[in-house]
């Protein structure tokens, strides 16, 4: 009879599976409780990223890693799913940014070379204020400033970006105080919007009336006062840059607000120019050659620039069968009269008519002898032929003109030449010839010789007479009584 021996009580050996259960349970618990939040990040490319390996780091501390990398449904983007460590939930908001950190070599910066060895990693800029979210869109380039850098943003508007791009430095008195963080083109393509970030404490130096200008490259001007070369630094030569300051003519104002909009000027000099709002356009017709007159040439009155030439055209007058050159001028009346005193339309007409009656004319003058550039001068010429403003012509009212000074000289010279032509040089020549001939005859004639001999005799007699008188004068001097008593 076989007996299967079995203990009645629970064998001690059951401790082993119990321990196994405890260990397994503890492992499972540890894994599950240490699991952090799972997120997805979309990128344009997965270059440098590896599923299961690429880490997410903040200040070089590992905060998570990439689990899987895949493409989205229409293959347009890379979807990276990642798991972060516990405790990072409160930093996953819609303001938090992710980007891939790869080795970066550029003109002003060499960074993250270590990633060549260790592999790229994903950087995070955690921001705890914002709406919590689990899905993010990754940036293609590292952001210029992370959210924790103290400072402020400002917005600049410019006609063109010049040589600026993200990362271009911003200077104040030649110290780098910030950089361009974002650039975009407006919807109508007319203006470029640049967002700059200025670090604290320099952001306090941006005032409400500060002016920003494009300081890139070299400022090189030759003008009447000499040659000027100006540059911010070697960096701006290559990368471009922006500077700001208040114009000479203004006092320090209040500190600007965050995200205040400024205009970006082309150069340092431009910021000191007054900006005028009102512009009036005039037409002038010049008959002669306008070679040397380019759009942008100044219009001057009493030596001050009051506007500029906007356009130089040509038109053919079929009636008179001649060519005319209408030039469009743009005048800023605020340069002459302050804004409040500008007269209204009718008064303006009356004023202009009166001035023209007194002799106000436009005239082309030579500006620069070297370059041959011309400018338009408006002045009062009392002797000008009477003329009137043509208020109804084409697009703009037409000011009467007088010809160029050079034209005047040419005219005078022509006049002198015509007069010279009128002189009868031939006749004069003939007369002179006849006179000479007669004179010659006279000189060689006998009468002349006889006259000369007679003259000679007369001269001798006169000499003797003079001698006698001289002697008599001497005697009289010695013997004054001789006049009465006679010679003794």
């Amino acid at each position, binding site marked *: *009879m*076989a*007996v*299967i*021996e*079995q*203990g009645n009580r*629970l*064998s001690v*050996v*059951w401790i*082993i*599976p119990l*321990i*196994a*259960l405890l*260990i*397994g349970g503890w*492992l499972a618990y540890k894994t599950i409780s240490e699991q952090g939040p799972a997120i997805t990040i979309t990128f344009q490319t997965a270059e440098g990223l590896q599923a299961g*390996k690429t880490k997410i780091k903040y200040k070089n501390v590992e905060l998570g890693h990439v689990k899987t990398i895949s493409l989205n449904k229409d293959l347009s983007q890379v979807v990276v799913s990642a798991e972060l460590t516990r405790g990072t939930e409160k930093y996953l908001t819609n303001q938090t940014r992710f980007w891939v950190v790869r080795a970066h070599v550029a003109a002003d910066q060499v960074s993250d070379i270590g990633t060549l*060895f*260790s*592999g790229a990693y994903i950087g995070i800029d955690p921001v705890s204020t914002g709406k919590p979210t689990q899905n993010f869109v990754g940036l293609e380039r590292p952001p210029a400033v992370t959210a924790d850098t103290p400072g402020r943003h400002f917005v600049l508007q410019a006609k063109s970006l010049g040589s600026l791009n993200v990362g271009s430095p911003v200077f104040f008195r030649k110290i780098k105080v910030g950089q361009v963080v974002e650039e975009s083109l407006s919807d109508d393509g007319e203006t470029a919007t640049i967002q700059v970030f200025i670090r604290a404490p320099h952001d306090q130096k941006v005032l409400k009336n500060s002016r920003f200008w494009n300081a890139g490259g070299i400022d090189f001007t030759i003008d009447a006062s000499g040659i000027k070369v100006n540059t911010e630094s070697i960096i701006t030569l290559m990368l471009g840059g922006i500077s700001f300051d208040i114009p000479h003519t203004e006092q320090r104002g209040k500190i600007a607000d965050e995200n205040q909009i400024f205009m970006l000027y082309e150069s340092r000099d431009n910021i000191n120019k007054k900006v005028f709002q009102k512009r009036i356009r005039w037409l002038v017709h010049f008959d002669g050659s306008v070679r040397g007159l380019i759009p942008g040439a100044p219009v001057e009155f009493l030596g001050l620039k009051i506007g500029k030439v906007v356009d130089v055209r040509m038109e053919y007058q079929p009636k008179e069968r001649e060519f005319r050159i209408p030039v469009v001028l743009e005048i800023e009346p605020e340069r002459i009269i302050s804004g409040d005193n500008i007269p209204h339309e009718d008064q303006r007409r009356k004023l202009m008519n009166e001035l023209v009656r007194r002799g106000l004319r436009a005239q082309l003058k030579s500006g620069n002898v070297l370059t041959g550039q011309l400018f338009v001068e408006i002045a009062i010429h009392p002797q000008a032929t009477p003329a009137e403003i043509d208020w109804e012509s084409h697009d703009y009212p037409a000011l009467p003109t007088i010809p160029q000074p050079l034209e005047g000289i040419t005219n005078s010279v022509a006049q002198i030449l015509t007069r010279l032509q009128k002189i009868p040089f031939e006749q004069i020549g003939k007369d002179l010839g006849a006179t000479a001939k007669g004179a010659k005859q006279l000189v060689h004639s006998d009468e002349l010789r006889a006259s000369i001999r007679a003259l000679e005799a007369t001269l001798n007699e006169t000499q003797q007479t003079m001698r006698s008188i001289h002697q008599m004068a001497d005697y009289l001097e010695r013997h004054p009584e001789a006049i009465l008593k006679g010679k003794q």
Partner: protein
Amino acid sequence: MTPPVTAAKQGLISCHCCALVSPNPGGKGHPPAACPRCGATLHTRKTNSLARTWSLLIAAFIFYIPANILPIMTSTTLIHTQSDTILSGVIYLIDTGNWPIAAVIFFASVMIPVIKLIVLTGLLVSVHRRSAWKPRERTRLYRITEAIGRWSMIDVYVVTILVALVHLGAIAQVKAGLGAVFFAAVVVISMLAARTFDPRLIWDQQELPNE
């Protein structure tokens, strides 16, 4: 054919240590006797065989999960850190064309432990249900299981040797992972389970119909 005579029926016990056959002093209730020659405790069957085998088997099952999930080896090179579990190592070897090694590792680290655990479970269940199914084959299975058990340690030896040999500082380094510990535990525990199982139990049920 007459059933063979069993020692238990005769009231005899064979000592498991020196194999001396000596009379069994009593049945249930008596304390276990000692062998007259070598003094080892005499048992008709291995003590508590089923309970012990079940408990060890369950522990082996539990440990088998982390053994496969946790990495058994982490290799670090200058540019690259790689953690491998048993299965991912096998796949990596297949990918790089090392078929023979992959086959060896797969057989030793995946197939053998699984086979062992399944066979032992099957044997235990069959004994509990007093099944009469092919006792000779079952015994053969048991013998195979016990014989091949130790070969699962191949994978653990591979990891140990790699860790000991690849010590090139920053250029290359191999570290054993936690999965290796659990895998070794699985192998050891399943070997113990095979030892605590008494194959004579397979044959015990044959006696009953004859009672």
